[in-house]
Every structure is written in structure tokens, then in C-alpha cells.
């Protein structure tokens, strides 16, 4: 793991030196700002559920925008060769790149912490902080999961656009396939076994629990293990790149 934090901090800082980093943050803040503006109505409920709920969907496009450059850009620019000939291993590279992306996502979420503060200031009675904290935890876990998935696809191509589009489309497919309408058979008839399998990997109900303030260890383990799984596949992809 030597060098992982060095790589992570470089990666994190580099997002703020390129337009795509600032555009991603600006777009996220604009979209969540619009959602929050609709929450701030006289007599409305002081909750972050809408902001955090919509953020799940914004992440389907924003996480690929972050992950697309993590490895594809290294391959395209040739810096991957310089990186891999330094005394750091594939594990450090994988972990460092991922951590850099996660740090950036957290930095992107950070300004939205202003929204709960506004709610606390203007709402009476005061909003419940539990669901907000859990909701943010769920969002970070989901973001990490999406990032790990996007990084796997980024490790397979030197074309950032291809990495972005493929990650985005597959995430949309994943969310649609694990949506209640599909699992419940309302949209298309599916075999019960497949419905059970899709329900087991569906993020929606888990995120709903986070939004309600329910901290279920099973949900945390689900997101962490899914993230670890895709990170391991990324590591394997980098190793194969070396050996093929």
C-alpha cells in the first residue's frame, strides 16, 4: 500500500486543476440547489430526503465523470508507464486512484452540508439529524460503489469518453433492472428466481433505509463488499495489462 495516499492526494488535487472537476461540482451543486429550493417552502417538511434521494440519480452521471479519468487518462497520456515503473504496486495504484476519487466526491458533497444548517436555522420544530447523517453515509457508500465500478471500466480503455458512456449506461441499466417496477414484475414479466437475485443487489431499498435514519450493518456491508469486488476486478485488469 506504499504510495497509495501519495497517489490519492495527487488525484484529488488534479480534479481541481481540470475543467471537468469544477464542472462536475458545479453541476451537482446546481441540481441539488434546485431540489433544495423546492424544499424551502413555507409550511414544508424540513428534510434532506429529496436532496439525498435525487443525489442518488445525479451520481449515475457524475460518478462516471469522476471515474472516467482515473485510469483511462493515465493510459492515454502515457503517465501510466511512469507510474508503474515507480516502486508502487498495482494494489497501491488501485487503492490510491479510488481513494482520490472518493475524496473528490466527498468534497463535492461537502458544500451541500449548508442545506441542513439552513434547515436547522429556519425550521421549527428542528429537523431530525439522524436521517440526514445516515442519508449522507448512504450517499457516500453509493458514490464509492459507483466509482469502483467506473474505475473498472476506466481500467479497460484509454478512451475517457468510452469509459464515461459505458459506466453511465451500465449504471442506468443496473438501477432500472433493480427497480421495484422490474422486480415486482410490473414492467416486464421476469422469473421469480431472477427477481429475487435482482432484489438482493438492489441499492434502492437500502438507500431508503439510510434516508429514514436506519443504520443497518447489512446495507453497509453490501456497499462495501460490492465496492471491494469491483476494486479487486480493477486490480486484476491492471495485472492482466502487465502480463498480456
Amino acid at each position, binding site marked *: 500500500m506504499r504510495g497509495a495516499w501519495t497517489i490519492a492526494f*495527487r488525484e484529488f488535487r488534479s480534479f481541481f486543476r481540470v475543467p471537468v472537476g469544477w464542472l462536475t461540482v458545479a453541476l451537482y451543486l446546481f441540481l441539488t440547489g434546485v431540489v433544495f429550493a423546492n424544499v424551502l417552502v413555507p409550511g414544508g417538511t424540513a428534510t434532506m430526503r429529496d436532496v439525498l434521494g435525487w443525489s442518488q440519480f445525479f451520481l449515475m452521471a457524475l460518478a462516471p465523470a469522476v471515474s472516467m479519468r482515473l485510469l483511462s487518462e493515465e493510459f492515454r497520456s502515457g503517465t501510466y508507464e511512469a507510474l*508503474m515503473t515507480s*516502486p508502487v504496486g498495482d494494489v497501491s495504484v488501485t487503492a490510491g486512484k479510488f481513494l482520490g476519487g472518493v475524496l473528490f466526491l466527498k468534497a463535492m458533497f461537502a458544500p451541500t452540508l449548508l442545506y441542513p444548517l439552513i434547515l436547522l436555522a429556519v425550521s421549527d420544530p428542528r429537523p431530525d439529524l439522524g436521517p440526514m447523517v445516515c442519508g449522507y453515509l448512504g450517499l457516500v457508500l453509493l458514490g464509492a460503489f459507483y466509482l469502483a465500478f467506473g474505475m473498472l471500466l476506466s481500467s479497460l480503455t484509454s478512451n475517457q469518453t468510452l469509459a464515461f458512456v459505458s459506466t453511465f449506461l451500465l449504471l442506468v441499466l443496473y438501477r432500472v433492472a433493480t427497480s421495484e417496477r422490474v422486480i415486482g414484475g410490473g414492467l416486464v414479466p421476469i422469473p421469480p428466481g431472477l427477481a429475487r437475485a435482482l432484489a438482493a443487489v438492489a441499492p434502492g431499498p437500502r438507500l431508503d433505509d439510510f434516508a429514514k435514519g436506519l443504520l443497518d450493518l447489512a446495507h453497509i456491508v453490501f456497499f462495501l463488499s460490492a465496492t471491494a469486488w469491483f476494486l479487486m476486478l480493477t486490480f486484476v485488469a491492471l495485472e492482466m495489462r502487465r502480463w498480456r
Partner: protein
Amino acid sequence: MIQVRSVSKSFGRVNAVSRVSFDVARGEVVGLLGANGAGKTTTIRMITGFLPPDTGSVAVEGFDTLRAGESARARVGYLPEAAPAYAEMSVEGYLDYRARLFSMKRGDRRGAVERSLTRCDLAAVRRRRVGQLSRGFRQRVGLAAAILHDPPALVLDEPTSALDPRQIREARALIRALAADKAVLVSSHILPEVEQTCDRVIIMAGGTVRVDAKPRDLIGSLREASPYVVEARGPADRVSKAAAAVAGVERTEVIGSAEGWTRIRLFGRSGQDLRAAIAAALTSEGMPIRELTREAPSLERVFLQLIESADGAPPPPAAAAGARPTGAAA
């Protein structure tokens, strides 16, 4: 310092490198030459640990690049051909990042970055973004990154290709200075550069080592077979006939005639210097000489002959004389 032992590497059905062996000792600058596709880059990538060899082994200061990869890589400074660096980073930011990757301590890091900036003449652009620099400057940034951690082995792929003549002279001096306590492997297409900088050259063709010799031995062996050029006053047929009569001259060809002077090229047996005999023969026939020289051999000629021989022609005399056996360890 760098030990390459019978390494081979294939990509699918293509044998990129086949049983290549050589050493680079401390204090030595070795040039790695070859046409495109000769296997230079693959060999370099195996030395730097970027690619694992299919068979054979590479060790740097005794550390095997496969079994002790991180230790081996820590001992190599590598400048890839395109000198890649993160365009959005400042020059000193990038060097500091590289120093961190090599686990240099904070105090050492600052000093190392300063030394590299000074040695590669980058102090004036230290705060500029790498992406804003010219290719020559970017190459110097790559060189600065390669020498940053003071590695015992340096592998430089085309280190001067983007530099102007003054920078080339400085880079050459820097490489020679670095070689005082390092093993330096330089891949280059600029043959005069290799001739002036390297103690030894390894010429690769078809994924194998064709020649492993000192440049002066290679050129010296070629000099023995170099043709003579003579310009004498007289008609072409007379000049040619008189020169051909000299013992040891095997063939003559007329280059041209103008204003009573004829210019011819003579090919003699290798191992003999026929200049005195040619001069005597022509002047005794009443044909004064205003030029008599041997065509200067160059590494470029050796290189071209080897490339041609790799394409099917018989190997040149220079490839054999004074050179180590093909593929043999140094």
C-alpha cells in the same frame, strides 16, 4: 548493475524479444540501438519492471524485477520516450510527487527536487504547468524525474530527441557526469549522439542482440573496409586504369569528371591502407592528385548495414569484427 539474462517476450504470436542478454556496469553508458520494431522498447520495459519477461530474468543491483519488483524499480530512474508527465501539475509539484512515490523523506525531497531542477536547467520554469511547456522542456522534466532519487541505474529512452543543439550538448554532458557512479542505458535514434556519449553500443534487430561492442571498435572495423576517394588530373579511363593497377585494389568506380579532373572511388582489401600506393601510382603516371581520402565510417553505416543484414543480406564485416557474439552476455 543491470543484468539482463536471456530474456524473451512475446505478444501473441509476435516474438518481440528473443533470448537477449547483456550487462550494464556502474560507470558505463551503453547505447541501445535498433530500427523500429527491433525490440528496444520491450527490452527497456522489462528492465524497468513495466513488463515481465516470459523467460529469463532482469536484475538491478541484484534485485530481480519479478521477485523483488519494488526494490528493483526503486533503483532505476526511467525516462520513457514521450517523457510523460501530468499536464495540470507544476514542474516542481510533479517532481515532489515523484519523490514521494519513491518514499523520500520530506527533508531529502526538497533537496532532491532542487538538485534536479538545477541539473536539468528547469529553475526558470519550476512553477509553470507541465502542459504549458515545450516538448524540449517536458523532456527535461522527465529527465529531472528520472534522476530525482539518485538511482544507481538510469534508463533513458530517446533523452535528447526533442532538445535543441545547445540543450543536446548539455544533456550529453549531464549523462556523462551521471555515469560517473551509475549504470546508464540510453536508447536513441540519433547515432552521432550515441557515438559521442556511449562507451558501448548494443544493436538490436528482429528482437535479438546483433552487436554488443565499443563504438570505436565497430567504426574501426568498418574503417578497414572503407573505400578511398581520389581526384586526379587526367581522363577517367587513364586515372581508373592506373588506380586499378595498384596491388590490393579490388574495384574502381568513376564518380565524375570535370575540367580535366577525374574523381573515382576505389575499393580495397580490408586490413590494408593503400593511400600511399595509390598516390605513388598516379603521380608516377603523370597524374597529379588534389584529393585522396578514405570515406569516414560512422556508427550510422554500421547500423544501416546491420539493419540490411537483418532483412536477409549477409552480415557486414563490421558486425563481426570487434564485436561480442550475438546475444552473448557482456
